[in-house]
């Protein structure tokens, strides 16, 4: 499909130009908002790797986000470690370790049960964070995390986040199109037939969770630069709910869906909260509308308009 390939290259090029030019055109406030959009887009892409490809609905990704955020905050404030790049590697590893533990218990579960168990885990983590005052600062979280050097200005933080998110997106894209990624899709479609094709369904789902939690951890670590701290709310189920919403809004059958979903969700929230306090109500209505009227999300709708089938998982 050569026309399609060209379309992707052109639109990626346009997007790249816009993303790079952004900080020179917008105010600091908006550059900050777009930094958050990038972070949540990565969180969404990490969940979508699990949800769109492997068909596992995790309602507990906030746990990985929070684990990495707290690891980052703790390492930067309580240890002598000041090289952020090392922390950026260690924090997602901690998140992936948590994924490895949770995975042992959830990889045999499906649908609703998978969602409930992962949700339960993130709430347990939330409780632990709130009580473990010495380590986590309890209810107040950890504040005042300083980043020296390259990560001090709003624009610098934005470009750093952009670079990391793009690298992670490329890696997720490569893994998604590898034999592993396609095996996950087969498992999503038909786990029984997959096992009759000698695919180890449980092991693949387990690994998918570890990959997903690692990249969600990257997003969580980047979040600390943006907010200068780590807070218990990151592990509360609503954060996980935000990440799921981003995926569904953008379209779980699309690789770029979470990027669109993150942009729409955060921009809408920013606009609407400047007019009314009732953002949660409006968000609820939006989610209902999406689920009922366009279950394939925004990218699914875009595919319909371009004459293709919305269910095909591609870009």
């Amino acid at each position, binding site marked *: 499909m050569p026309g399609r390939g060209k379309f992707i290259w052109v639109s990626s090029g346009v997007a790249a130009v816009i993303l790079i030019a952004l900080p020179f055109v917008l105010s600091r406030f908006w550059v900050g908002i777009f930094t958050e959009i990038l972070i949540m887009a990565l969180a969404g892409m990490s969940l979508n790797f699990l949800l769109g490809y492997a068909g596992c609905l995790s309602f507990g990704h906030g746990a990985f986000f929070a684990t990495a955020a707290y690891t980052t905050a703790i390492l930067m404030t309580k240890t002598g470690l000041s090289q952020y790049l090392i922390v950026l590697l260690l924090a997602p590893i901690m998140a992936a370790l948590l994924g490895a533990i949770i995975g042992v218990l959830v990889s045999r579960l499906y649908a609703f049960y998978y969602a409930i168990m992962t949700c339960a885990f993130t709430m347990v983590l939330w409780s632990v964070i709130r009580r473990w005052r010495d380590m986590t600062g309890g209810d107040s979280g950890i504040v005042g995390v300083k980043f020296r050097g390259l990560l001090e200005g709003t624009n610098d933080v934005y470009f750093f986040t952009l670079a990391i998110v793009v690298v992670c997106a490329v890696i997720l894209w*490569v*893994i998604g*199109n*590898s*034999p*592993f*990624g*396609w*095996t996950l*899709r*087969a498992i999503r*479609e*038909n786990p*029984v*037939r*997959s*096992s*009759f*094709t*000698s*695919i*180890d*369904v449980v092991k*693949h789902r387990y*690994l998918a969770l570890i990959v997903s939690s690692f990249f969600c951890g990257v997003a969580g670590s980047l979040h600390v630069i943006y907010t200068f701290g780590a807070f218990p709310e990151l592990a509360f189920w609503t954060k996980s709910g935000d990440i799921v919403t981003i995926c569904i809004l953008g379209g779980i059958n699309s690789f770029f869906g979470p990027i669109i979903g993150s942009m729409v969700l955060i921009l809408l929230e920013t606009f609407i909260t400047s007019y009314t306090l009732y953002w949660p109500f409006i968000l609820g209505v939006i989610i209902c509308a999406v689920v009922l009227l366009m279950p394939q999300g925004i990218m699914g709708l875009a595919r319909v308009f371009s004459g293709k*089938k919305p*269910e*095909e*998982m591609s870009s």
Partner: protein
Amino acid sequence: MFFEVVNLQKSFGGLKATNNVSLHIKQGDICSLIGPNGAGKTTFFNLITGHIKPDAGQVLFQGEDITGKPAMAITRKGIARSFQIVNIFPQLTVYENIMVAVLSQKRRSFNFLHPAKKIETGEIDRLLESIGLTRQKNMLGGQLSHGNQKRLEVGIALAMKPKLLALDEPTSGMAVEEKAAILETIKSLIRATGCTVLLCEHDMSVIFEVSDYIWVLHNGAIVANGTIEEIKNNEVVQRVYLGGRA
């Protein structure tokens, strides 16, 4: 003995679906399992391919005891199965359906780095050609006609390079011309790959055309076995299944 089942038993509540079934298959044979509806053919298939565990008895494949092993392991050992009710990957294209099976057979399903669609393309295309689905390779599995979905079923099983191919009613739900066509395809595939086949069918014309040996199942138990001629002339079989005529 290439494949042997000894005193296999399975009950569901009060129903004895598999009642002390013993049978054997010689390597290279096309062996058929026939019986009226509810005889327990699909349960038997499920037991020997690892979908469900037997209550008692043994399943031996090339001398190895595979009783109660999971489907994934049994498939790895060389027994591949197609399903009576089409069981493919509906939202994947025909090419992707076969691709996933081939990648798994080649033990590359944990490969993170290479683009999957550039690997083993020759083998996948050959398989598609042999099941007659080359033209449909970019169609979604769920969009295929019933007959083509059945071909894809067999294709996925064949991609596993099985030594024993267990086909559960491969021609069910098909029109006469389609049946003849898929039968030809299956026969040529068997000739080409040399695999042993356990075939379960309702259509007696199919059975009498291809079988080297036949086992007859009724109410979960084997009531007769033999060559085509022996079965055609068997009184019990005539009464139970063929309705009194040969």
